[in-house]
């Protein structure tokens, strides 16, 4: 695209930048390396180890075998998948529609509605009224819908998407309107396709949010066959915490093997890690101009 000769200063900058990025890669990769190596280690040897870990201590797959023996894990996968796909789809639909309306100029009530919406980011009635609403009145308790519907819109994401929609040229929309297109057509055929970078970010944010969420599952679900993966993971992680052990009367609960803990993290994290590179292809420059040029 840019066919310019690089100046000396720019070359130095490029070199320094690459070095800095490599540094970032190394320090941010470490937690992941640590988890992988711990999960492949022998629990006993891990016990006496401190400090950095760059290679497994006594390589073994034992931990993964034990993790997959846990019936809650496989069921958890399925539940999580349902919630991620269903939840994200609903999130996207509602967020796109809301962001579109709120980003349109000249809608007289839009600023007020925005204030009303932003207000909810700060004030909430707390856990119990929400629970009563979902459980006693809507009768969604103890079903996966309780994990999807009450979190149908994230205000944060709505604001980001609205900001992004609002930055599209007005002329695009107005000319479509003059061509006779109504708002649904404009949203789905023009605005969304033009906003693929940010839409893919939304998919990522919402998807990851659903994938990682456990709190709602924890409060609404009373049957273990509905538990999503993260709740199962949390159960395993939390059992090694002293606080939990103290809470158990006799305080002598066996802790989970260290390597099992890490293997569970791997099993619960790996799938979502593959989503990002897939989303990334929308981050390539020129998405927008490509469409306009058409």
């Amino acid at each position, binding site marked *: *695209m*840019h066919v310019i000769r690089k*100046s000396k200063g720019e070359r130095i*900058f*490029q070199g320094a*930048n690459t070095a800095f990025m490599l540094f*970032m*890669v190394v*320090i*941010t990769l470490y*937690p992941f390396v*640590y988890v992988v190596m711990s999960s492949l280690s022998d629990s006993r040897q891990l016990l006496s180890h*401190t*400090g950095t870990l760059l290679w497994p201590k006594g390589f073994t797959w034992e931990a993964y075998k034990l993790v997959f023996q846990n019936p809650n894990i496989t069921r958890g996968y399925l539940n999580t998948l349902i919630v991620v796909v269903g939840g994200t789809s609903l999130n996207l639909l*509602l967020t796109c529609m*809301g962001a*579109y*309306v*709120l980003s349109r*100029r*000249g*809608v*007289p009530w839009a*600023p007020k509605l*925005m*204030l009303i*919406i*932003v207000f*909810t*980011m*700060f*004030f909430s009635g*707390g856990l119990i*009224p*929400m629970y009563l609403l979902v459980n006693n009145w809507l009768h969604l308790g103890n079903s996966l819908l309780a994990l999807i519907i009450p979190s149908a*819109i994230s205000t944060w994401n709505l604001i*980001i998407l*609205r*900001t*992004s929609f*609002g930055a*599209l*040229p007005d002329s695009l929309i*107005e*000319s479509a309107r003059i061509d006779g297109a*109504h*708002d649904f057509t404009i*949203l789905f055929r023009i605005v969304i396709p033009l906003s693929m*970078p*940010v839409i893919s970010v939304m998919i990522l944010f919402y998807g990851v949010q659903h994938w990682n969420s456990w709190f709602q599952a924890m409060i609404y679900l009373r049957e273990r066959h509905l538990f999503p993966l993260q709740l199962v*993971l949390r159960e395993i*992680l939390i059992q090694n915490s002293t606080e939990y052990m103290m809470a158990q009367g006799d305080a002598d609960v066996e802790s989970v093997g260290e390597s099992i803990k890490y293997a569970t*993290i791997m099993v619960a*994290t790996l799938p979502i*890690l593959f989503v*990002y590179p897939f989303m990334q292809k929308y*981050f390539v420059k*020129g998405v*927008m101009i490509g469409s*306009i040029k058409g």
Partner: protein
Amino acid sequence: MRRGLRAGPDYTARGPKQGLLRRRAGRAAAGLARGKGEQEGAAMKTLARDYKRHKYLYFMILPVVLYYALFQYGPLYGAIIAFKDYRIAEGFLGSPWVGFKHFLSFFDSYYFWRLMKNTLLLNAYLLLFSFPAPIIFALLINEIGRSLFKRFVQTVTYLPHFISLIVICGMITQFVARDGMITDLLVWMGMDRTALLGQPEYFRTIYVVSDIWQSVGWGSIIYLAAISGINPELYEAATIDGANKWRQTINVTLPGILPIIIILFILKMGNMLEIGFEKIILLYNPNTYVTADVINTFVYRKGLGESFEFSYATAVGLFQAVINFILLILANRFSRKVSDSSLW
């Protein structure tokens, strides 16, 4: 459909991407005679006319409004419990009123000022260092030419976001322990050997630096998306005008992502009294309370006491929310004055 992009040296000021959220001056930019009916008197009439014209907009917003009414405003009555002594079985309406008792008991607390100070200071540091980090990082990533390396860096740096906080904090604890990697480094640079987390003066630094480490990659995603949405013609125009990479970043890229920066900044401002307590609880100890104890951790510890402190926690939460909301409104107003863009 193309607009005149090249209008002299101030090309960035007029590009279509500059249409910030709520461009007051630009309201009528499209040249359509509508959207002025904000006077209360003509409100109903305007609304009726507006409905006719934008029927589909109303259909679209309906489920959104329903959602907010039902799930966000519906449970709001629960906030009254801050003014009552909550008793489980009597419920929200039956529990006895106690007025501002819980608020006063919080303000009267021996630790109130320390908690306020710690919460605000920690947030101020986060705002100063942790907020700009992903922006700078996104700009730097954007400068990487080779796209494979670029993708690799992006993919790797967002990994810490996915590792459980318990594990992350376990690692931080190890790094800054008496014999930890980071401690070794600092000792080599001439510091006395000690467990850094045991010293109150290091707590904020550890918290902020590790926050950057955890979130810089993930936080940059949104900025990268915004950068990739910038019209390439702007760069072409800049290049033709002889702007070097640095000038392009300052004059094209940064203004291009400014709307999103401002919005996130405003939201961050509305969060100054709030700080996630999980990470602090995993990192602090009584010796570092003096710098590390914040409002939420104090309330959390109180909740472990002998009674069910629901009313107290709600009262403190309400106090935080009111202050935060005021800060947000101020930030929004300020931003509207200075940058011509705002949340509403």
